[in-house]
């Protein structure tokens, strides 16, 4: 638990952060809440030479709605999301996800930007941001661009961030119409991370599902959208049988399910199906 030597720099603006990133390149790491990075450094799994602390950049911490879009700044903590009145009203999936993430200390320090940038295959946010159809807004040497959450997560601990890039915000269209959402998670008994985590958002029209978003984390080396579940739901009734039928596709096409001491891949896939059904039932019950 003794990290290697590193330099530590606090920055006050995005520009400063970007120019330092450009200067130090691969030697540098952004420090957000530190709750993934510092443990890795203490184990010397990561040995960055320079830490650029973006915690003091005020312009990165916000939750706001503008023109039908909800924007969450990268430095917004899990706790701020959990307790945001705006989100509780317009997209309760995110606060519900936050309540199930880590413990109070982790939620007070950890950030959504750090979580998506880290791309732990068992992290909670990836499922939720996929479910709500979010874009990850990235700012880099060539300016800003938005990457669909579906494309952002590439593999275990790997995203489509390029050298010199910073996550600026997560943004998505505020759910409209009669919607119901739910996040359900099976916690790993040791780490508390997701063995499976299922984020669901449903839109209901005339008793039928008109649109849905299903994000799955924990099962595979990267979080994914359960497309076959969404397809099965489209236009379907929300009775128990239809939901169960749709949920049975939750792990379709997953060939690299994670196996570790607690749960094999086969069991994870099974849990994904069961918990998708349960999350769908809960979300359907909440749709109003």
């Amino acid at each position, binding site marked *: 638990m*003794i990290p290697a030597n590193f330099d530590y720099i606090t920055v006050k603006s995005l520009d400063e952060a970007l120019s330092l990133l450009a200067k130090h390149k691969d030697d540098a790491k952004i420090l957000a809440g530190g709750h993934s990075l510092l443990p890795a450094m203490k184990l010397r799994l990561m040995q960055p030479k320079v830490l650029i602390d973006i915690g003091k950049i005020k312009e990165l911490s916000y939750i706001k709605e503008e023109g039908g879009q909800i924007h969450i700044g990268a430095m917004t903590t899990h706790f701020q999301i959990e307790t945001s009145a705006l989100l509780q009203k317009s997209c309760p999936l995110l606060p519900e996800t936050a309540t199930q993430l880590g413990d109070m200390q982790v939620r007070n320090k950890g950030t959504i930007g750090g979580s998506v940038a880290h791309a732990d295959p068992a992290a909670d946010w990836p499922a939720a941001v996929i479910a709500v159809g979010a874009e990850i807004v990235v700012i880099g040497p060539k300016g800003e661009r938005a990457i669909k959450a579906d494309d952002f997560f590439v593999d275990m601990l790997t995203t489509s961030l390029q050298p010199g890039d910073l996550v600026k915000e997560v943004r998505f269209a505020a759910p409209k119409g009669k919607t119901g959402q739910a996040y359900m998670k099976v916690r790993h*008994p040791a780490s508390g991370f997701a063995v499976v985590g299922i984020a669901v958002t449903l839109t209901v029209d005339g008793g039928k599902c008109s649109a849905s978003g299903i994000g799955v984390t924990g099962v595979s080396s990267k979080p994914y959208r359960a497309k076959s579940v969404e397809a099965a739901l489209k236009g379907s009734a929300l009775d128990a049988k239809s939901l169960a039928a749709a949920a049975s596709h939750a792990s379709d096409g997953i060939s690299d399910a994670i196996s570790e*001491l607690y749960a094999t891949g086969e069991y994870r896939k099974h849990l994904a199906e069961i918990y998708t059904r349960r999350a769908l039932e809960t979300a359907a019950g909440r749709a109003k």
Partner: protein
Amino acid sequence: MAEKVVGKGIKRTEDPRLIQGLAHYVDDIKLPDTLHAVFVRSIYAHARIKKVDVAAAQKTPGVVAVYTGKDISQKIGPVPCGAAIPDMKQPDHRVMATDKVYWVGHPIAVVFAENKYVARDAADKIEVDYEELPVVLDEEKAADPKSPVIHEKIGSNIAYKLTAGEGDIEAALKAADKIVRQKIYHKRLAPIAMEGRGVLARYYPGEQELTLWTSTQIPHLARTQISLMLGFPENKLRLIAPEVGGGFGSKLNVYAEEAIMAYASMQLGRPVKWIEGRRENMQGTIHGRGQVGYIEIGCKKDGTITGFRYNVFADMGSYFQLLTPAIPTLTGLMLSGCYKIPAIQMNVTACFTNKMSTDAYRGAGRPEATYVIERAMDLVAAELGMDVVEVRRKNFPEPFGAENPFKVATGLFYDSGNYQGALDKALKMADYTNLRVEQKKARAAGRLIGVGVSTYVEICAMGPSPALPAGGWESATVRIEPTCKVTILTGASPHGQGQETSFSQIAADELGVTVNDCTVIHGDTAVVQYGIGTFGSRATAVGGTAVYLALQKLKAKATGMAAHMLGVDAKTVTFDDGKFTSGGKSVTIQEVALNAHLAKNLPADMEPGLSATTFFEPKNFTFPFGTHICVVEIDPETGEIQIQRYIAVDDCGKVINPLLVHGQIHGGIVQSLGQALFEEVVYDEQGQLISGSLMDYAVPKAAQVPWMELDRTETPSPVNPMGVKGVGEAGSIGATPAIVAAVVDALAHLGVRHLDMPIKPEHVWNILKKNKAGAA
């Protein structure tokens, strides 16, 4: 009239400093010029060391010294083992590896540097050339003559074989109507004290004295052993156990790192400190349990047990630590549980494996015994179609005590017990009859509810000296200072149990002072008279008794002094509420205390001062007992297990502080829960520790712990004057079988009779799946 405090659940006097972060653990003690040590440990489970290249490490600026095993392991005596079993094979356990490494985590070299960062950087530069050797991991396969051999000099992996028990087991099994057999695993567990180990050593060349701060449960025993390892005079070695953040048996030991730090501080002339990291803790601090056994239990059709045999392979790890080989013998002692069993036999084959040593972990051999006999009773019940409670009741002895101790076929005499009493109370709390009705209804509705019952007894208050390797007595000195403040020096070494509070309660009542007037000092060999330490649920029953007896001596002297001050015959003096009274006259204990020190008005034959020391040697162990009932519900779709209710009625004799007792029971049940459902030290086929971090090794956290409904019965122990028994390990002994039994019971209608720990949801799901496929 001051209120009596013994029996009251007063809050721990220790807590304010712990909660506020004001306590001083080893790492909080900072000495100027301290060097920091980092170890290089083996990354292989079994390998020959071809070369250790330390040149780059030595050249690192800030590095003061680097030692390899070759440099120092002949300069320091072997790591001690205090247990002896007839014909036991004991490998020469040096403080660091020299030619071979035996487990992942085996220390190979150590760097001392100006700070821990430099030390770690330099340690990373040490290159070790290994030649890998075949590994031995399974304690059962290790005994196979065809297995690779770990210690060439010993020639086989068998450390010892031992048969224990009394009665004619063959005849007993022959006389049975049925014999039930089952293979049972007790997986290795990691003790995971909140504070890992840590050592700070300082040598004073002028005084030729050495002070060692180390996180230990046995300051005096460790001092003796380390002085022997170093060839350093014991009376010049001061060992201090400062605040100790838990031990659970893992610090009832003497470790290589302690001796190495002591040695280095003398060699380097500077204080040296080593603080264990969590990964190191999981690799290099002892593990608990580690047995695989075969049970055979014979019974009559009415449920009467005729005989019980346990053939067990015990995993020693690659070396012996302080008590490694003794742990399975404790299992053997407790195989009778709380039942009349005419014949018992245990056959142990203790084997070396390429893993960290096993040793005492909360319960130390007794949880294994309780688990096998409780599982066996459930298997008998299942075989005979009897209720698990009835089978137990059938084999209970009548309540017993001083006049009629309960003799069991392992050679022990249990001190006192009323097993029916605790069982009845727990059944009532659980509303057991109704639980069974509810269970039936739930089952019919497709819900999986299980009820597990464990009636346990354990052996503690270790113990009479002939039964222990290094003395089973305990010491106390009680001093009344001139201002009538009371100082208690105990040879026990509390590290979370709360005896600073409970010993003060005892003194407060005996002397008519307040708890706040008392202070308890422990853990410093320069201040406290020799003592044995804290383990085996002994500190209150043995150490507390020593305090109690010292107080009696003190009161006798004070009474004599008071009589003299009052000018009356001592026989006429009564002492109550801090006042010595005779006729109409009285003198307070404060006045007596002052007089004892001013010494101007003493009886002719009386020494000044008010201090008494006792060494208490118990005549027997004590045997706490109780009933635990667990109710679980299993998710039929996923196999996930939810504990719905947890009821425990424990009897630890007289209770000094019920809050402390509850704390111990809570903690023990939580550790049981960990063992039953989550915890398992896992080495892969290469001997790599793959459960080596808290991301993988699941210690239960608060949110995973059920509400516990606790109560107690009180059957005093005749072994000591206060009638106390000990409660430090009861929870971790009694709870595991109840939890496992509940899960098994939830699946009983599917033909499940036993499941091995930790019972993971996936395993349950596989059973459910198979059953569904079978039914379809």
